[in-house]
């Protein structure tokens, strides 16, 4: 395999690797606008010029494949490359409006970062601000994206994304020279269901998210790595939050799951957490209760309604819970109730878990952990529908339900009606949930649990990949992680003092469940897919220079 030397450091790479990829592997920064690891290289921005020994002129690192014995010098080591890159950047900035104070990209903008670097920028401007070519600002490109044509550097990442990744082909450049401008097809709103990605891949502030527009300066945000819980694909994402509120979700690069993309539904899924009011305190028979009392009451009422009457407990945990939660749920039900029906299906999760909704990322099953439930010993048994039948026949003593409203879309009316019917039919019911929902109103005991983004744990995606999600924000009031609540129930049923800390529960799972064998929680938690913008570099504020 070819061995290449970049700035005096050697690396052996696969044949066909480009110089910029080899530099990324070495951790040598080469500035770039148009190159993106998940898009075809085009070499139009000329920002990645490097000096290669034996070549008469600097070449673009993104479109030059390495050959054995190649000696490359980046702008950090070669004055020639540095001068070339400075010239390119000066050209790109000729018509830049320099409206950073009102630009949402400021703080994570490649133009800003590169200009401030002594090897690429910091040249004095030779352009009179009055002579700059002005273009359209605040162009409406539909509900997701706002275009500012003046800030565009014509890197064509968005054009290539729209053409090669989603195939909607909605963006193109028009005119020439100084007057090149990005336009959407017939100036219509973008139809692309992945349009949110334009704001991520745009290296400057030209394409901006409408949802995040003027919400918060990026250097004010805190970042937490997580997994999208919108469907069974399990896209890697980063939760950006401020002051305990989620401000935006952006994809993390994981070539095996979602590459660098995220669908718009997943991107906006955090908003569904606010649609219904949250359950803030435990409720027993319609009245607020204290956690200690209510946990004891829940356990004893469930057991007297089943054991006393020789009837089974219907236990249904929706596949939106983490692996740790589902595991404790199963252990509690199996240990405390000799007769039980352990279910996880609300509708047709098991059939839909691998079913694609489109050709890119979205899947039909809107539960993030269907595969995890199957691996943890939940079976595709009678499901919710079967439990309703059992209850109608009077063969169900009580119901224990762990229910999370879906983050993307809603459960079907049929499912909701079945839940209502089930809660009406059973004499005792304990529901662990996040939101006050009309179809859960008949629950005898309601226990508030942490929603997605408020608890730590692992999810298993449709491929069977176990992925770790960290806790980003705090739960409202008395809501607690579901694993802890189930731990409380177990304690009251005198099954010792179970571990409820996710890392320890995971160790227990890895010990006992074949699908999890050999996995370590700490390794999963540290296996960070690269945060998206700009590749391999920490966004401003994470390198110790933070505004907060």
């Amino acid at each position: 395999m070819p061995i290449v030397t970049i700035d005096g450091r050697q690396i052996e790479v696969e044949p066909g690797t480009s110089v910029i990829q080899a530099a990324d592997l070495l951790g040598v920064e080469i500035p770039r606008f148009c190159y993106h690891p998940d898009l075809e290289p085009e070499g139009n921005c000329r920002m990645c010029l490097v000096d290669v020994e034996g070549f008469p002129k600097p070449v673009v690192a993104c479109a030059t494949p390495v050959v054995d014995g190649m000696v490359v010098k980046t702008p950090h080591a070669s004055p020639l490359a540095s001068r070339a890159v400075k010239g390119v950047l000066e050209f790109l900035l000729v018509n830049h409006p320099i409206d950073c104070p009102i630009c949402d990209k400021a703080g994570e903008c490649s133009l800003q970062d590169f200009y401030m670097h002594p090897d690429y920028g910091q040249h004095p401007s030779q352009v009179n601000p009055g002579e700059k070519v002005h273009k359209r600002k605040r162009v409406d490109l539909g509900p997701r994206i706002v275009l500012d044509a003046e800030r565009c550097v014509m890197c064509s990442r968005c054009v290539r994304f729209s053409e090669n990744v989603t195939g909607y082909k909605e963006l193109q450049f028009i005119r020439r020279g100084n007057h090149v401008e990005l336009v959407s097809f017939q100036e219509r709103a973008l139809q692309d269901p992945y349009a949110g990605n334009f704001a991520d891949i745009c290296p400057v502030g030209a394409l901006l998210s409408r949802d995040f527009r003027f919400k918060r300066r990026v250097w004010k945000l805190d970042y937490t790595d997580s997994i999208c819980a919108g469907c069974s694909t399990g896209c890697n994402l980063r939760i950006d939050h401020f002051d305990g509120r989620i401000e935006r979700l952006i994809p993390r690069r994981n070539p095996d799951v979602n590459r660098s993309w995220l669908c718009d539904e997943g991107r906006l899924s955090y908003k569904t957490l606010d649609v219904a009011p949250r359950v803030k305190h435990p409720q027993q028979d319609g009245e607020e209760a204290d956690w200690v009392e209510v946990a004891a009451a829940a356990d004893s009422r469930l057991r007297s309604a089943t054991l006393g009457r020789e009837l089974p407990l219907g236990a249904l945990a929706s596949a939106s819970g983490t692996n740790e939660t589902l595991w404790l749920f199963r252990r509690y039900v199996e240990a405390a109730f000799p007769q039980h029906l352990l279910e996880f299906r609300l509708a047709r999760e098991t059939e839909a878990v691998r079913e694609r909704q489109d050709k890119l990322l979205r899947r039909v099953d809107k539960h993030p952990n269907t595969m995890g439930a199957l691996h943890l010993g939940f079976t595709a048994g009678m499901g919710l529908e079967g439990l309703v039948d059992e209850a109608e026949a009077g063969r169900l003593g009580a119901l224990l339900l762990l229910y999370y409203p879906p983050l993307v879309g809603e459960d079907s009316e049929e499912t909701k009606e079945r839940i209502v019917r089930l809660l009406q039919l059973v004499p005792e019911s304990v529901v662990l949930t996040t939101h006050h929902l009309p179809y859960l109103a008949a629950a005898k005991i309601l226990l508030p649990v942490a929603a997605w983004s408020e608890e730590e744990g692992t999810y298993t995606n449709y491929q069977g990949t176990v992925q770790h999600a960290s806790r980003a924000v705090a739960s409202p009031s008395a809501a607690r992680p579901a694993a802890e609540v189930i731990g409380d129930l177990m304690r009251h049923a005198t099954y010792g003092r179970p571990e409820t800390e996710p890392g320890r529960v995971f160790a227990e799972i890895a010990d006992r469940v074949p699908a999890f064998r050999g996995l370590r929680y700490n390794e999963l938690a540290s296996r960070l897919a690269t945060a998206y913008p700009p590749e391999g570099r920490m966004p401003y504020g994470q390198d110790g220079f933070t505004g907060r």
Partner: protein
Amino acid sequence: MAKTASRVVDVRAEAEKHATGLRGTTGTLAGLGVTLRNMVRPQHVTIQYPEQRKPYSRRFRGVHVLTLREDGSLKCTACYLCETVCPAQCISIDAKEVEDPRIEKAPSRYEIDLSRCIFCGFCVEACPEEALIMSREYDLAVTAREPESLTYGIEDFTGRSEIAAYGAGFRPHPEYPLVESYVPGERKGEI
């Protein structure tokens, strides 16, 4: 170094040698003299605050002022530079979209908790548009304990008559003229 014997002074004997009938009163009378002399001197140092106030320097860092455009709208575009630079972290801003495409962005909320503010003036120096300057207003005593009582919003920074009464204070580029109409306030004072 050899130690030399010091001269021993009998302090008490020395004092009695100088004692007269007015022993102990000369110092008091000298002090009274200073008081009397200053009482009749024409120069007054003490003023009748708060009815009378002293003029402060043009560089005085008092309560902030949000300056206005000629049409009366805020100059501030909510770039958050002041919030970012503030060492006391007492500024909090929310931004909103505005119709005018040349402006795009404006603050929907601009609050400074003056009870936490250290009046360092960094916010004013950070402002790229001189949208935030300081006034010469300094008396901020309030009778309520709640933090809100000293948290000033947009109306407080633009609509109070005190701003004009005290005049503009610190701004980073005094070589540029301050347009009078930009400084809000009911009564135009000395700027």
